[in-house]
């Protein structure tokens, strides 16, 4: 015995092993979310079926709430670095940056997830069961499926899956090395692929969207990975900070770095659904269960932009002049494609998907400005703050809009064809009015959050010298306004076709989601300053 342990000790000594130190307190928001996901899996295994729904919903809400509190707690004792330019520290052996922007994005993600959980848990609309497939393994249209449906069986696994996705998103936006970022990308993607295929109604389209999302997602993450490989080849490290050092110590561009940067951009731009990597978005948004679509549209964008900004500002900030032209083109292209193709859409969910693409373009416009906190004067906002504010504003609006889509129904479930929305303004003035309000926010009409957020990214882009892009963005906003207005016309000024749409009365859960979405859209449009202040307090990325 004695000799064995000494052997072990010598082996360990020879391996020069650093015992990892992990500040669990700092990482608690992340750990709570993953923990809740694991508990959820255990609940699936051991709790009786009829209790699972209640337990899972409560667990999800509780976990996200606790995590949110943890974010606030961690945020309150962040230490400032470099004369207040940034705050926070690098944790988990350098893998995770717990800095101001990370916490801001974590908080945003958690709030969005909280209201999305309510959408996931909605049971009134389908007559007492959730909008997810009763038995995903049963073939659509078979006796087994009908039986599962009539027995009120539902897949409560969606809650742990969602928790894993949220955890992945939080990690993705705060990862401080590219390897962790890649793992996080997969952690957030896999549950989403699965969730997309779990619609109760129109399961063929749903499964198809899962397949498309999966294949294209895997394809893009392969690009991301190869990009990481090349950047690693250039810098010899995965750490963003060390890459930055390598970048700034190199004179002249390196082809390895440029190729790696471009490939990584492909992967990240795919996730934010920027053109020309947007092809999956309309299909997936349309096919996925609407609650999942809302979740993806808001949260994936937040996480992916968090990661995009971190990689490009922290690791590749030194070669800003090399990637800015590329991003100019992509921003212009994304806005143009999103706005122009949306005009031809006849399905509400597809239209919202194209709108989401166009918004990705506006976000990239803000990102291109690349104005750092130290470069701006007085109360002016930096690019990072502008983009973060945009994400908050857009997320609330888009979740609200998709929540409205879930309540407009006919006999076959949600009715998303535009012509079926004709006359909604008379049928249900409140619902139609709220939806019109969301559309006006998407179009960027003042007194909505869409206006202030567009304004923020435009100023940061212009201040960064990208004024031609701002002009393009403005023109595209006009084009985009056309199709938003078209929907308003259909809802308010067209005669209903046939029976017209009916608006199901949702439970308190969906009502809360819609109310929060509308309220935040209004509040951020009228008094956005607190959120700007919060973003300012968050400061810049830690290096």
């Amino acid at each position, binding site marked *: 015995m004695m000799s064995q342990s000494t052997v072990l000790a010598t082996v360990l000594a020879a391996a020069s092993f650093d015992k990892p130190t992990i500040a669990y307190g700092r990482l608690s928001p992340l750990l709570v979310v993953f923990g809740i996901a694991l508990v959820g899996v255990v609940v699936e295994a051991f709790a009786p079926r009829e209790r699972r729904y209640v337990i899972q919903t409560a667990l999800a809400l509780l976990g996200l709430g606790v995590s949110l509190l943890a974010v606030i707690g961690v945020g309150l004792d962040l230490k400032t670095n470099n004369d207040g330019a940034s705050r926070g520290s690098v944790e988990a052996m350098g893998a995770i940056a717990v800095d101001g922007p990370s916490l801001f994005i974590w908080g945003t993600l958690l709030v969005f997830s909280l209201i999305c959980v309510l959408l996931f848990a909605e049971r009134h609309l389908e007559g007492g069961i959730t909008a997810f497939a009763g038995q995903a393994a049963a073939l659509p249209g078979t006796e087994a499926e009908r039986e599962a449906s009539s027995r009120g069986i539902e897949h409560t696994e969606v809650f742990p899956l969602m928790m894993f996705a949220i955890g992945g998103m939080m990690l993705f936006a705060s990862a401080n090395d590219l390897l962790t970022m890649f793992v996080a990308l997969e952690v957030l993607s896999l549950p989403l692929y*699965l969730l997309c295929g779990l619609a109760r109604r129109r399961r063929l389209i749903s*499964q198809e969207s899962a397949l498309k999302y999966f294949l294209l997602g895997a394809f893009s993450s392969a690009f991301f990975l190869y990009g990481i490989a090349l950047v690693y080849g250039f810098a010899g490290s995965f750490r963003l900070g060390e890459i930055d050092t390598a970048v700034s110590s190199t004179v002249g561009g390196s082809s390895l770095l440029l190729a790696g940067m471009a490939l990584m951009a492909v992967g990240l731009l795919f996730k934010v659904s920027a053109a020309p990597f947007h092809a999956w978005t309309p299909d997936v948004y349309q096919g996925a269960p609407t609650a999942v679509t809302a979740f993806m549209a808001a949260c994936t964008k937040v996480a992916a932009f968090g990661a995009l900004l971190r990689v490009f500002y922290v690791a590749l900030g030194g070669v800003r002049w090399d990637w800015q032209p590329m991003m100019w083109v992509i921003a212009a292209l994304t806005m143009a494609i999103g706005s122009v193709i949306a005009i031809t859409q006849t399905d509400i969910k597809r239209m919202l998907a194209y709108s989401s693409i166009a918004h990705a373009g506006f976000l990239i416009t803000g990102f291109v400005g690349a104005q750092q906190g130290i470069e701006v004067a007085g109360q002016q906002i930096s690019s990072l703050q502008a983009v973060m504010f945009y994400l908050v504003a857009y997320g609330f609006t888009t979740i609200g809009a998709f929540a409205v889509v879930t309540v407009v129904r006919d006999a076959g479930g949600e009715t998303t064809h535009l012509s079926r929305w004709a006359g909604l303004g008379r049928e249900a003035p409140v619902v139609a009015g709220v939806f019109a309000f969301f559309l006006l926010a998407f179009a960027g009409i003042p007194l909505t959050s869409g206006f202030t957020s567009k304004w923020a990214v435009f100023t940061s882009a212009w201040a960064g010298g990208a004024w031609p892009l701002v002009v393009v963005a403005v023109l595209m906003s006009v084009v985009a306004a056309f199709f938003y207005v078209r929907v308003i016309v259909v809802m308010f000024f067209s005669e209903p076709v046939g029976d017209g749409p009916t608006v199901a009365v949702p439970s308190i859960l969906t009502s809360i989601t819609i109310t929060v979405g509308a309220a935040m859209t209004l509040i951020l449009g009228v008094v956005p300053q607190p959120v700007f202040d919060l973003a300012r307090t968050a400061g810049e990325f830690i290096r």
Partner: protein
Amino acid sequence: MSTTPFLVLSAMLFGVGAVGVLVRRNAIVVFMCVELMLNAANLAFVTFSRQHGNFDGQIAAFFVMVVAAAEVVVGLAIIMTIFRTRRSASVDDASLLKY
């Protein structure tokens, strides 16, 4: 032993895999092409690891294998589901969703 030949090989495999994803219609084959791309990336990682003389690249390759394993499970499960409904694994046959 120079690293460039290894990297060129890796880039070629990656390119062939990417072309495969674009031209093939069978979902399983498309997925295999993605796996080929991941493997190409792994080769690059391992080669760069030798180039720089640290183990980070090898760790990355290891992680990629783990990730790929999980991805394969999820992917094949999705492909199986859609196959059982449609009796076909062609990406084209799954075309309820159009522009």
